[in-house]
């Protein structure tokens, strides 16, 4: 590879697509076609751009050297006052970017035919969001990271607020203000770090030693932001609302990518930059993680809305991520990264699965379903696969993530691991209950009599996720080889390596 700025290309390709769509739509404003046709054209164009982004990210994968330590493909331009436009990736960010570029075209395909009004704006919002999500994962400057991190709120706010369900305004406001409040603490910490260390370069700050008492405050400020984003108990309450109100594609992106920013943040900033504080807060993080796993699982069991159930299940699964990260063991951190990728695929798939029946029956009430296996055998099989993956069945990627994070946690605290194991059992309870009540039994709801099985479009969206889930479940080393360097670097300040 020469000096081609591949990261910039991957990051801004979707934005370029959004601008192009905007311009073309504005230029052809009055050529007589109705809004829906034009919207569909925009969606197709958006799909092409997001697919091209995926291809570009594969090029990025190809030029990535797995065994090389440190950050790769670094690009750097001075921005202002010592703050830089600096991009770079390591194994962890590489995989999260791939996850993003995979899920965005899938979301757009899933929206085809289901989102009916204002498709042009819808497509633009998703493309803009994709740029910001990729930017978050490859920003190598704290201020730049903050910009991407915050900017992503606006398209998501609009996606929930415009194309959401009945309570969308409340949900979008809650989502925005919760995240914003957390982020402002982080901004204060970022400005402080910049003034104290004289740089906002992440690579430099990773080795900068802040005084222990300062670390505590900085850690808490970052924690405020990431805990909301992840989300951790007790600041998770925005998530079920946002998920229930968001359109299917919005939920896929929210659960698949946005939640991962929290885990990414802990690994990228909290551990290497504030090692003393991280060790100090380990018991608290373990406690919060276990509470999240057990509490969210129990709450999930009581839900009557399918999306809400999966949302709470996400809270529980993200608990495993924090558990693994704060075990400070290589196996735990590797497991946490793996769990993030795996959960991105599985929860994305589950929201798609809910979306498929919602599009047909227009309700998410579990009680309205039952006996789907009689009418939709392929659907039932796919649902079964992802139910099992979410529970953590060996052979699926869910298993690997959970077992590794628990192994890591076990080395640090037996009790935490025991508590988390309880969560695994609970997850089987609520997922299997959901599956039984929707798929098995007699068909009681007359609305289900004429329901059709999954179509081509549904298969196109779900098959890549099936492949990913199984592939990672069978050969997890694909991920571990790539993320090993990242995990070791996240830990090196703590283990004194």
């Amino acid at each position: 590879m020469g000096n081609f700025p591949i990261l910039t290309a991957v990051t801004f390709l979707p934005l370029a697509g959004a601008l192009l769509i905007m311009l073309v739509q504005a230029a052809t404003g009055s050529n007589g076609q109705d809004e829906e046709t034009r919207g569909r054209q925009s969606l197709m164009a958006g799909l092409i751009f997001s697919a091209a982004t995926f291809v570009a990210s594969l090029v990025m994968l190809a030029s990535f050297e797995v065994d090389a330590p440190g950050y790769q493909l670094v690009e750097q331009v001075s921005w202002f006052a010592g703050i830089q436009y600096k991009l770079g990736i390591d194994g962890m960010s590489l995989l999260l970017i791939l996850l993003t570029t995979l899920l965005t075209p899938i979301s757009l395909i899933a929206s085809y035919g289901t989102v009916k009004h204002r498709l042009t704006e819808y497509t633009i919002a998703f493309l803009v969001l994709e740029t910001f999500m990729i930017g978050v994962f490859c920003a190598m400057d704290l201020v730049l990271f903050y910009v991407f991190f915050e900017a992503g709120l606006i398209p998501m706010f609009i996606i929930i607020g415009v194309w959401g369900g009945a309570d969308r305004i409340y949900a979008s406001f809650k989502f925005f203000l919760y995240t914003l409040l957390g982020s402002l603490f982080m901004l204060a910490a970022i400005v402080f770090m910049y003034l104290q260390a004289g740089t906002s370069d992440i690579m430099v700050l990773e080795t900068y030693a802040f005084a222990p008492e300062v670390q505590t405050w900085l850690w808490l400020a970052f924690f405020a932001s990431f805990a909301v984003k992840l989300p951790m108990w007790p600041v998770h309450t925005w998530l079920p609302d946002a998920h229930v109100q968001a359109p299917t594609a919005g939920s896929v992106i929210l659960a698949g990518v946005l939640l991962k920013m929290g885990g990414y943040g802990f690994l990228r900033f909290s551990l290497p930059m504030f090692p003393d504080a991280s060790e100090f807060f380990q018991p608290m993080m373990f406690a919060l993680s276990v509470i999240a796993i057990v509490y969210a699982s129990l709450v999930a069991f009581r839900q009557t809305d399918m999306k809400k159930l999966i949302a709470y299940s996400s809270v529980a699964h993200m608990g495993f991520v924090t558990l693994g990260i704060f075990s400070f063991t290589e196996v735990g951190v590797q497991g946490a990264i793996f769990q993030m990728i795996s959960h991105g695929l599985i929860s994305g798939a589950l929201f798609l699965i809910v979306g498929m029946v919602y599009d047909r029956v227009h309700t998410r009430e579990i009680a309205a379903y039952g006996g789907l296996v009689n009418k939709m055998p392929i659907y039932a099989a796919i649902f079964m696969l992802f139910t099992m993956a979410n529970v953590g069945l060996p052979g699926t990627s869910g298993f690997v993530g959970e077992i590794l994070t628990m192994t890591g946690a076990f080395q640090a605290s037996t009790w935490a691991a025991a508590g988390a194991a309880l969560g695994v059992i609970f997850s089987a309870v609520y997922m299997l209950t959901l599956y039984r009540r929707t798929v098995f039994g007699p068909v009681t709801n007359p609305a289900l009599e004429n329901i059709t099985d999954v179509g081509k479009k549904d298969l196109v969206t779900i098959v890549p996720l099936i492949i990913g889930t199984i592939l990672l479940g069978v050969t997890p080393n694909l991920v571990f080889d790539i993320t090993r360097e990242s995990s070791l670097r996240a830990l090196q300040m703590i283990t004194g390596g």
Partner: protein
Amino acid sequence: MLDFQAMISAIGPELLLALAGLAGVLAGAYMGDRFNGLSFKLGAATLLLAALVVIMNWEGGEAFGGLVTTGPFVNFAKCISFVAGAVTLLMAEGFLKRHETIRYEYPLLVIFASLGMGIILSASNLMTLYMGIETLSLSSYVLASFHRDSIRSSEAGLKYFVLGALASGILLYGISLVYGFTGSVDYGDIASSERTIGLVFGMVLMISGMAFKVSAAPMHVWTPDVYEGAPSPVVAFFATAPKMASMVVFANLLFTAFSGVFEDWQMIIGIIATLSMLIGAFGALIQTNLKRLLGYSSIANMGYALVAVAAGAEYGAAALLVFMTTYVIASIGLFGGVLSMRREGGMVESIDELAGLVRRRTGLAIALTILVISVAGFPLAVGFIGKLVVFQAGWNAGLLPLLIVLVLSSVIAFGYYLRIILVMWVKEPAERFQPVGATVALSVYAAAAACLVLFVFVSPFIDWATQASAGFIQ
């Protein structure tokens, strides 16, 4: 001959404006109504030319034996103010034409107001300062009541005049006290005289008078009323050019004349800033009229700017220029938005009238969204960087309590900024706006584009501001 040249480099722009204004009066007298349409273009051209003259004499100079001293710091503000004046003047033309109040007096008043701005920015003597302030204020009072057949406009003008006259009186009283206790009205002499209680007292009164001009709390009460009542293009002008000029004059006065009593005014400015940020943020939350909301928003933004002032000359000067410029750019665009809100039967001003704008005028809605994001200080637009440098200035000066208020009031302010975005994007579309001409739309788009472009290529802009403030750094 040499002397003449030094004078030109100090007061060239003001000279130009004064002559152009007088020529305009004559032309109006001879041509009558035929001059109305032309006067707007000529006025804007004059203002742009004045900005050009400022840039050509960037290093400034001294004139009239020290009554007038210019330098890069004030020239920066002059430049932005004149350009803002020109843009708002062009935006006003269509509006006034539709309301059948297009008269050549309007651009002349804007030019005289700009002349006042130029004078106060050049002032290095309290008498010059007062003269300039009166030139600016008297033109502004007339502009506020420019719709003389409208009760609201007349009321706004009268309110502004009565309160403004009071503030001028307070300012003048402060000046007389300062003169009495220091024996001089020259900035440099005042700075080098020793601290006496009379000097501090006079300074406090002067700060009160200046706080009125920049609409900082607790002297802000006129702002929402005048913003609501005065004709929209006039408000667009008030919110941009005079704000920039007055704020920089305020800072210049404190940084130079009162540099000897820094500790005394730092606390007062801190309190004013805190009050402005909180009153602006909370006051705007309950507004339904967009112009009133922007009035409160400007109070809050003046509070942020005052944080940079409170940080002192060394840390705050450059930050103030950067922040005020970002604010002026966003304000021009937002008032362009206000000017676009025309329905059958007249202008509308309620926030709810923007409902579903994205479906009716997608481009306008996106531009307004960017502008709101910028003025809210959210990343993605240059307003974020403006707030960041203010934050940095406050941090360097150790003003932690102020910064906490700044962050909290920003969060509160998101509440109402977000509501504007939400109304435009989510609500069911209202009736389509009537077209208001290309100038307004162009200004909105240009301002939004500037917010984005400056965000990405902000470095030269910050360097420019830093270089302009270099004189304050010891």
